[in-house]
């Protein structure tokens, strides 16, 4: 703690000298613990983009080129650490923006400090609905918090849709007892209702973080006749569910939140993970030249042959480019001006997931999608196959190739959420 504070102080002191020639961007997230695959991938994706930008001389701000300076903080997926880090960042007078956070609870604990000071933050890749709806519930007029992730509303709709498309009728809804799991359950139940009650929920089962033995929950689901398991949880426990199924000879596939693509799910579940389905914003497959160069770049820079969480990495990469575009348009490192530029990005940003044209609009408390970049069309179904995530449906693959090469339609007529 002391060391961190000291580092903070040193950074503040150091920045006095060089505030004029760098753009300071903070990258936060859990770089250790059960959520680490997402946290480190998002960070490393952003760093890859930063390295590219800096190698090209930096961002054009006004009449000079400025390099990006990184401030890195590990929140360990702990709410209280997240709050401390947010307070520290909020106290930095020359910070241009923040990208990060994996855990919805950490967003809820920390983002208020940034929002109070008007510091621009792009949440990436935390997907829980609450991290944006908290601002509409509070009715804030001016919001400096944006999100760059397929939020749970979209994901839950896709999960339910997929179960219906695969002709399942009886499902078990399984979730962990965190904010993320419980709100995921609520989203799924709401979607089942919304999509015409075609699925019967025969069992609702809960478990805690750290649980390894899911036999009881699975047996109840099995004896109730569940054909598929709709699930909202984090890597290690998801793996315990898949392994538990294998143990009791249950064949119901898991369909659930994008966390099912985390490496600690895929590795710990092994062959029991095959056939698991989850929404993805990016699949580690070189379907476009841009995707290929990103994947190769990541593998080379971090010496891996599989990105721990490809979705988080690609989102971290694109989010950084979007923020950089806003800095350029604002012509300033002032975080408030960057926020205004983000709400009205004039030039499309070419990312690895899609080409982002006008991803955000002016904050509207009645419509959180004004600060949400993702729409249904940028998300596809992924499937676990022999230790990797591949496209679940070939149609999605073709559609993505198309959308990556053409400009996504600008936001017209707001898509009302709920």
């Amino acid at each position: 703690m002391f060391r961190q504070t000291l580092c903070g102080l040193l950074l503040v002191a150091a920045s006095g000298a060089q505030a004029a020639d760098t753009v300071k961007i903070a990258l936060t997230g859990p770089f250790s613990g059960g959520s680490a695959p997402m946290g480190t991938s998002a960070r490393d994706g952003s760093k890859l983009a930063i390295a590219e930008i800096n190698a090209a001389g930096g961002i054009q701000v006004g009449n000079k080129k400025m390099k990006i300076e990184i401030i890195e903080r590990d929140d360990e997926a702990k709410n209280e650490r997240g709050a401390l880090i947010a307070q520290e960042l909020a106290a930095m007078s020359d910070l241009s923006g923040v990208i990060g956070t994996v855990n919805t609870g950490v967003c809820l604990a920390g983002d208020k400090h940034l929002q109070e000071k008007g510091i621009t933050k792009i949440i990436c890749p935390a997907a829980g609905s609450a991290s944006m709806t908290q601002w509409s519930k509070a009715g804030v007029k001016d919001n400096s918090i944006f999100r760059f992730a397929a939020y749970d509303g979209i994901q839950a709709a896709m999960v339910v849709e997929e179960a219906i498309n695969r002709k399942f009728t009886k499902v078990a809804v399984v979730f962990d007892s965190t904010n993320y799991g419980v709100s995921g359950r609520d989203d799924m139940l709401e979607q089942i209702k919304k999509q015409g009650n075609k699925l019967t929920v025969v069992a609702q089962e809960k478990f805690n973080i750290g649980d390894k033995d899911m036999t009881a929950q699975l047996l109840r689901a099995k004896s109730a006749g569940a054909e598929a398991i709709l699930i909202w949880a984090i890597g290690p426990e998801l793996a315990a569910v898949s392994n538990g199924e294998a143990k009791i000879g249950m064949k119901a596939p898991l369909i659930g939140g994008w966390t099912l693509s985390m490496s600690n799910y895929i590795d710990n579940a092994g062959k029991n993970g095959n056939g698991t389905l989850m929404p993805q914003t990016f699949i580690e497959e070189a379907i476009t030249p841009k995707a290929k160069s990103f994947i190769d770049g990541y593998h080379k820079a971090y010496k891996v042959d599989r990105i721990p969480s490809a979705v988080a990495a690609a989102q971290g990469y694109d989010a950084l480019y979007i923020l950089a575009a806003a800095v350029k348009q604002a012509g300033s490192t002032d975080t408030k001006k960057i926020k205004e530029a983000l709400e009205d990005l004039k030039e499309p940003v070419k990312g690895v997931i899609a080409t982002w044209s006008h991803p955000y609009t002016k904050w509207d408390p009645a419509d959180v999608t004004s600060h949400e970049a993702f729409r249904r069309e940028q998300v596809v179904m992924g499937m676990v196959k022999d230790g990797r995530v591949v496209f679940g449906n070939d149609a999605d693959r073709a559609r993505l190739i198309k959308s990556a090469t053409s400009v996504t339609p600008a936001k017209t007529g707001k898509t009302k959420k709920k």
Partner: protein
Amino acid sequence: MNAQIIGQMAVSGALMGLVYALIAYGFQLTFATSKSINFGQGELVMISAFFSLTLTNLGFPYWAMVPGGLLFGALMGLVVERAGVRLALEQKSEGWILLSIIIGLFFFSAAENIWGRDDRPFPTPISADPIHILGVDVTRLELSVAVGVFAIMGLIELFKRRTLLGKAFEAVSADRDAAELMGISSTRTVMLSYGLSGSVAALAGILVSPITTVGPTMASALILKAFSVAVVAGLDSGFGVVLVGMFLGALESLASFYLGSGWREAPGLILLILALALRPNGVFGKATIRKV
């Protein structure tokens, strides 16, 4: 509710319960000779599991990795004895309680720094595919736990009864001072018991890891259950821990099935309170008269 599900829950619970029993047996070994137990036993389980995982990753085959892991566990047990227990015992103080906890915390930090905080899979050649026996699905992995637990407990008990060293062990357990007068070094015997206890912990780690994954916090839940088992059965109950361990495991998994997974721990805790109230020396323990 149909009998098959009850059977399934009871059997998989009881097999997990054997791991609690094995760790509880590790408490018994040191308690017998020195009336002390290692409160950091869970960390011993964890760090030995990590060490065995490293051996596996280095390319050692399973049959070579197991003895390697057991040896490492024994060494760590000796470290605990030397650093935490011996001085306290010599001074007839209860300092070993705190010291063994502290050494455990040290192991925990060491593991976090060496191997990281993530849970990792533990590869094993034993298949995790279920076998169908009398309507109950059991995996070979779970059966390997049972085999391992009974094998090491059987071996250690044989050792205690059939070898000279083992008889010395028993003598010190029965009466330390009298054994000293007969020329048996109680210090060495206590060392032996901590070494054995460390090996037992290591085996528990190797057996349970393929089922639960390896991580710094893997043993924190196990160790509490093992304490309950040791207390309910009695710290000098011998094979009593096996019965209590299996019973507690089965009870837990039935509770999580019928009462909901949140209530999993409740019956075990009630059992613990009852045992402390009704049979403070344990269900299988001998009543001792303590001279004051």
